[in-house]
């Protein structure tokens, strides 16, 4: 329904027709409907371009499905109280029944939430085991280092590294990874804390000075995904954009061979 209305309005704008204010109002309304309606499928979180990210997206959707009836119940009870128990115009001034306690009810509304959070915790640890699992035989390993204000990607055994230079909020160096197999990332920081965040993967991990963090990514399909630094690291924090380009394993091997032994390759946008 909103899509049809959007089409009509666009035609109106093209012909320079009257009703500019209405058009603005309608497009604002469409924006609002889209904002509420579009995320309805996954409740706003990307489906996940990695196997791990898909687990996280499923967990989030599950949490949201639990939230809907709970939120609905509480809002419903509030709204009912407001509408049903407001003081009427013909009120006789008498006091309502001065109820203070109802122990069975109080035990119920304490016990049921305990059960709910234990169930949610069960889903949480099972997802966490899948997401945090580090495979002993990865298809590829990359050392990622965050520095102020870009990233360095080292491919151990191939004697070259890609170093970002002068990124912007929408441009930066590219980390090439293979699809299909498990990619093992070791994460470090050179100066202050950074955080390796790829929104399409629904995943981030902090890069902390003095600490080596490890995690695995499994990217099923080829594609290009934007990444950013999620931990404030100073004035050009927003320039730490990078891209992940996932290519077929054969293509990835060819790309590695092409770059073998090239040392530091600076990539500027």
């Amino acid at each position, binding site marked *: 329904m909103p899509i049809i209305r959007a089409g009509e309005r666009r035609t109106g704008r093209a012909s320079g027709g009257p009703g500019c204010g209405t058009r603005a109002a309608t497009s604002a309304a469409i924006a609002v409907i889209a904002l509420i309606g579009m995320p309805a499928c996954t409740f706003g979180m990307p489906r996940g371009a990695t196997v791990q990210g898909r687990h996280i997206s499923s967990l989030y959707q599950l949490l949201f499905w639990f939230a809907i009836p709970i939120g609905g119940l509480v809002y419903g009870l*509030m709204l009912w109280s407001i509408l049903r128990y407001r003081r009427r115009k013909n009120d006789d001034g008498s006091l309502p029944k001065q109820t*203070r306690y109802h122990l069975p009810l109080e035990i119920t509304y304490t016990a049921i939430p305990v059960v709910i959070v234990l169930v949610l915790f069960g889903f949480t640890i099972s997802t966490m085991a899948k997401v945090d699992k580090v495979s002993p035989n990865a298809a590829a390993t990359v050392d990622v280092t965050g520095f102020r204000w870009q990233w360095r990607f080292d491919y151990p055994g191939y004697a070259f590294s890609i170093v970002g230079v002068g990124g912007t909020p929408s441009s930066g160096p590219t980390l090439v990874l293979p699809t299909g197999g498990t990619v093992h990332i070791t994460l470090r920081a050179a100066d202050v804390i950074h955080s390796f965040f790829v929104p399409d993967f629904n995943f981030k991990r902090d890069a902390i000075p003095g600490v080596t963090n490890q995690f695995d990514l499994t990217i099923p399909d080829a594609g290009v995904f934007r990444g950013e630094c999620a931990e404030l690291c*100073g004035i050009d924090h927003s320039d730490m954009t990078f891209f992940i380009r996932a290519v077929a394993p054969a293509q990835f091997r060819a790309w590695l061979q092409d770059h073998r032994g090239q040392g530091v390759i600076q990539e500027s946008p």
Partner: protein
Amino acid sequence: MSETTLPAAVHEHRTRAARLLDVITTTNHKTIGLLYIWASLVFFLAGGLMAELMRTELATPALNLVSRQTYNELFTIHGTTMIFLFIAPIGLGFGNYLVPLQIGAPDMAFPRLNALSVWLFILGGVTILSSFGASHGAAAVGWTAYAPLSGATGSPGPGMDMWIMGVLLTSIASIMTAVNLMATVFMLRAPGMTMWRMSLFTWNILITSILILVAFPPLAAAVSMLFIDRHFQGHFFDPSHGGSVILYQHLFWFFGHPEVYVMVLPWFGVVTDIIPVFSRKPIFGYAGFVLASLAIAGLSMSVWAHHMFTTGLVDNAFFSIMSFLIAVPTGIKFFNWIGTMWRGKLTFETPMLFCLGFMANFLIGGITGVMLASAPADYDFQDTYFVVAHMHYVLGGGSLFAIFAAFFFWFPKMTGFRLNERLGKAFFWITEIGFNLTFWPLFISGLRGMQRRVAEYPPGIYTTPNQLSTLGAYVMAVGVIVFLVCVVQAFRKKIPAGDDPWGGYTLEWVTTSPPPEHNFEWLPPIRSERPAFDWRHRETGPGTPAEVGVGPPVVST
């Protein structure tokens, strides 16, 4: 003492300077409480102005209003101001004013310590805000001031040191006030005022004070270590010299999460004192409410590392389950409030509207809080606008709304004047709409991957949510103007409010508005948690007022 014996005419004609001197040298808990409240509100306006500047910058993807450096300073000092200089201290302000009144005491236990604490707090606030004028600008590290970014290399210049000193001063002030409030509650309750007859605001202030004593010393330690790192080669947080970066986060969040409840528990108490009055019923499940507050306080000390799920250095499972569990006592409170309204006779004066707004907004903050407690889901949410939206629903939609509920509810008691109901309701509706318009779209930009603490973002999917949010921020600014008009008008028109405009339940409503120097000329018998209500309905039970304090008892029979 001598002041109370002065005739009213003499009092009126005292010079402005003499009255100012009275305020500066006062040890009276009511004047100190008002100093806390008014100073916090000034800091709130400053923090709000910074928020408006940030929202204006974020209306477009590119940088076009302030520099990156200024933007970083703005969000750092905005967060610091709202947390250290507004929400937490205004709670202590209401606590200072109301706790002695609600327990039937003439003043706080340590009046001079009380005076010292408020001036340390104001000094701390001035130190933090004036750091904008420092040579390298104010601190630009976020309100958490993570090391090593906040170290000498990452943050050169005195702005960062002023932040540290300001936070230390407000921490010391908070600790002093917490000790004072606890001593007052334990030692100065009137005859008949047992612990289990205290108002729920007083209960929650007591529990908040305990949390302050637990939480603020680690904060003071963390920022002191930071200061030593910056100037005296402490290397506490420097891994190249045997230090640990993550240690700062542990210390900071061991403060930071109890601090969330320092900023929320007093307002749970406020809402729990107000809803029964406008429902014409006692609170439903008083004992359960107190136990839930204690459970929240206990659990809040074992959830700090849920702010560190993405560091890979903590036991995510343990901190997940503890964070999940804290939803249970919080949920109990919702049922206390709904149970109180159930089969009551509800009216919707401004304080009640703000309480209902508090419940509606806080619920979203609570539900998203449960989502954030799930560590793998937090791998996505952490440091994005989802977290920003969540915590603004807790502290803005929650605490801020309850602060205004408290302000509208007790303003008549504190000043003796009435606030315009129509303006108050307009303020509520503008703020409720503006608030949701500001923060709901931020959930969406956060889920789409927009990280926090950036002045620029790539054009495209983030633009529309950000523009809606900016529009909402302007709507809220209109609301604040309506609020200021409402307050100024009340002081100009001086319409007497009467001693008990709402039909209040707690002890402060039996004394005059504003209360006399030592609060009570007489006290009703205290036989339940609603002594003022019992006194109004004394035909159903025994009751002659108890005479207390100095001067002749003013008893009307």
